């Protein structure tokens, strides 16, 4: 039995430490297991580590599970885990003077030590979210890496995951087969045991229509990124169905808070009132998104119920008039090609309130340059963009997008009070206190409206009815360990 996944892009490499790419992660995660993982509710649970404890603000201790075997039959030890972590965090550890591009994901990890079957991680400063980052770091075999080197690891796999690599047909497919000596994965996620299917294939089909066609024709069993407008088609097909899961990516429109027009909060509020979010969610996204009023997804840690601006064109016009624009404003709204439709729809809705937004579609790289948060005199008006939050921890999304001058602060929003709150939250070890801090922060941004917060779309998968036991996961992993076919 085999499951085929129609997948948007190929892995860049199969070396878990040598990429910064979500799709690559998705594929690799079926071959390698992590120290920790997440269950269906996005809770962090142990995987290769049996358990973990935070022994001090700056140190964590992981107990490594016994009896785990790599695909080549060797045992996985605490040394391998240390090796893995060192490879990720030590400068130049990849060989050839190269440092893992994932180093920054492990933040202030300072050193890793082994004590029997325990691995002790020491941080240079308190960093409570370390466990949240560990599900995306996979354990490699020390002896194997020493044998094949980083170059070999790019294409060869000796993981501890449920599947072994059979063949990587670059650009075309990744073929895997069941690893019969698999330890069973995290016991917190039932059912533990070997993978259900004999073979798993990730088939790369970048073109959306082709991917859907492949699903409909039975060429593949699961496809990712099913467009909302294809849902009915997939559902009306007797052999296929649709599965959705709340996503982790927040969409918003950055308003240039340093700019001439949007430095006025009234104008920003006007935009928020002018936007009929539910219309667009219904019509363009097929209802597959959750509205947000702050940056956080409702599922994220510390998220709270916030007052909605509400669609009210008259109010929007009134606010504009108050701000000195009785005839409305002419603005440009930037976006990438992928969201053209949505943004055009947004623009047409905004127009009804006198916000005449001209849509400019541009390449992601160009937009990144144009909306550089470090820019002194930013030129843009509005920027439809998004920020992913796979960890569902506010730290990963709130700080970059809202802290003054931070990497994702495309609104050029600067509020010292908020900065202070965020800084405090980052190092607060007590979960409840942290949550309260973020709540407060969310109230501030909801009032300041540096962005128009839009929605968190659901991830939509097309799934063949043959497939049983598989559920999409909110961090957009496609974990095929539990999936079976009839």
């Amino acid at each position, binding site marked *: 039995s085999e499951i085929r996944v129609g997948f948007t892009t190929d892995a860049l490499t199969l070396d878990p430490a040598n990429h910064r790419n979500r799709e690559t992660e998705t594929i690799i995660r079926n071959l390698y297991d992590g120290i920790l993982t997440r269950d269906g509710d996005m809770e962090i649970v142990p995987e290769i580590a049996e358990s973990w404890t935070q022994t001090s603000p700056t140190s964590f201790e992981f107990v490594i599970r016994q009896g785990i075997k790599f695909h080549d039959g060797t045992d996985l030890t605490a040394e391998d885990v240390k090796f893995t972590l060192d490879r990720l965090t030590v400068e130049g550890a990849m060989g050839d003077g190269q440092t893992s591009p994932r180093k920054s994901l492990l933040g202030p990890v300072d050193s890793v030590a082994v004590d029997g079957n325990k691995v002790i991680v020491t941080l240079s400063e308190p960093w409570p979210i370390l466990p949240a980052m560990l599900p995306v770091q996979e354990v490699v075999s020390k002896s194997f890496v020493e044998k094949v080197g980083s170059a070999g690891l790019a294409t060869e796999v000796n993981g501890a995951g449920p599947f072994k690599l059979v063949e990587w047909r670059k650009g075309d497919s990744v073929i895997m087969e069941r690893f019969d000596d698999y330890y069973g994965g995290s016991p917190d996620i039932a059912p533990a045991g070997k993978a259900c299917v004999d073979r798993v294939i990730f088939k790369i089909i970048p073109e959306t229509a082709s991917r859907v066609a492949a699903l409909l024709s039975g060429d593949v069993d699961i496809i990712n990124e099913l467009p909302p*407008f294809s849902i009915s088609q997939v559902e009306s097909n007797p052999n296929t169905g649709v599965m959705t899961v709340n996503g982790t990516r927040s969409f918003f429109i950055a308003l240039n808070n340093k700019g001439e027009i949007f430095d006025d909060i009234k104008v920003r509020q006007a935009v928020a009132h002018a936007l009929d979010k539910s219309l667009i969610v219904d019509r363009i996204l097929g209802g597959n998104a959750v509205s947000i009023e702050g940056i956080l997804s409702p599922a994220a840690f510390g998220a709270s119920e916030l007052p909605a601006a509400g669609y009210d064109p008259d109010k929007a016009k009134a606010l504009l008039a108050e701000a000195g624009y009785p005839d409305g404003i002419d603005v440009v709204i930037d976006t990438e090609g992928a969201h053209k439709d949505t943004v055009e729809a947004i623009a047409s809705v905004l127009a009804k309130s006198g916000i005449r937004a001209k849509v400019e*579609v541009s390449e992601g790289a160009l937009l990144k340059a144009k909306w550089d948060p470090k820019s002194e005199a930013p030129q843009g008006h509005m920027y439809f963009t998004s920020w992913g939050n796979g960890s569902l921890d506010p730290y990963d999304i709130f700080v970059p997008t809202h802290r003054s001058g931070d990497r994702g602060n495309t609104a050029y929003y600067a509020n010292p009070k908020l900065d202070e709150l965020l800084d405090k939250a980052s190092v607060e070890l007590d979960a409840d206190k942290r949550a309260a801090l973020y709540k407060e922060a969310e109230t501030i941004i909801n009032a300041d409206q540096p962005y128009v917060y839009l929605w968190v779309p659901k991830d939509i998968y097309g799934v063949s009815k043959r497939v049983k036991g598989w559920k999409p996961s909110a961090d957009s992993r496609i974990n095929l360990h539990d999936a079976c076919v009839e």
Partner: protein
Amino acid sequence: MSAVSDPVPAAAVSPFRRNLSSFKENRLALGSALVLLVFVIMAVFAPWIAPQDPYETDLFRRLQPPAWMEGGEWGYLLGCDALGRDILSRIIYGARISIFIGTVVVIAATMIGIMAGLAAGYLRGWVDVVISRLVDILLGFPYLIFAIGLMAMMGPGLFNIVLALVYKEWVIPCRVVRGETLAVRELEYVEAARALGASRFHIMIREIMPNVLSAVLVVATIRMADVIILEASLSFLGLGVQPPTASWGSMVADGRAFILEAWWVSTFPGLAILLLVLVINVASQGLRDAFDPRFHE
């Protein structure tokens, strides 16, 4: 002592007129020229012809099928796109972009190409070396990659699309002109002009250029078809004209995602491209047959 025959031609018409009249005899080509004219009229008078506002979105008409299908409306003959805009109206407006880009790119490229080709072919020497090597270099670049790179470099916009295409397009007329110039420069009438004391400029512009023009004219029309498809390809890759402006290429490209559920979104603009390019090709073939004496049979 090879002898040439001494026919006495009857009618006193210029070669251009004669070629034109032979073009007119070609009914298929003439028909195409008429269709082309219809397209041009459509483009020019789009606001008066289009049944709907091509930019008017109506999310409740999203992906509405063509009129003759269930759920269609006669006011929206060819159905609506993903934002509920009338496809027919967008096609009518899109003719503006496609024809504009096709014409402007080809005219600009042809003018550059003629100048460069004449200079290379007539002046020879280092001018030729420089131009020819440049041509070689540009030919070695895959066209689309070059255009994509340029678009990435210059950013989006209609003007940039034109530029990105012209940067490479001129090479083709340049090669043709250079080749023709090399042939023509050896002819005795060029030598005659030199013997009379004509300057190089005079010879290039007055003696050689008119004689290479017909070849270029033919190439230009053929290229126009290609340029329209290229613009469409750029749009397909997301580097085309800006929304909400409709270009046929971007309509096809945008619609291809819906092809399974709403085939009309990309099919009709696709047919429009096909038809326009087809008539340009037929007309240009007719032109070539008429103007290139080698095709006189």
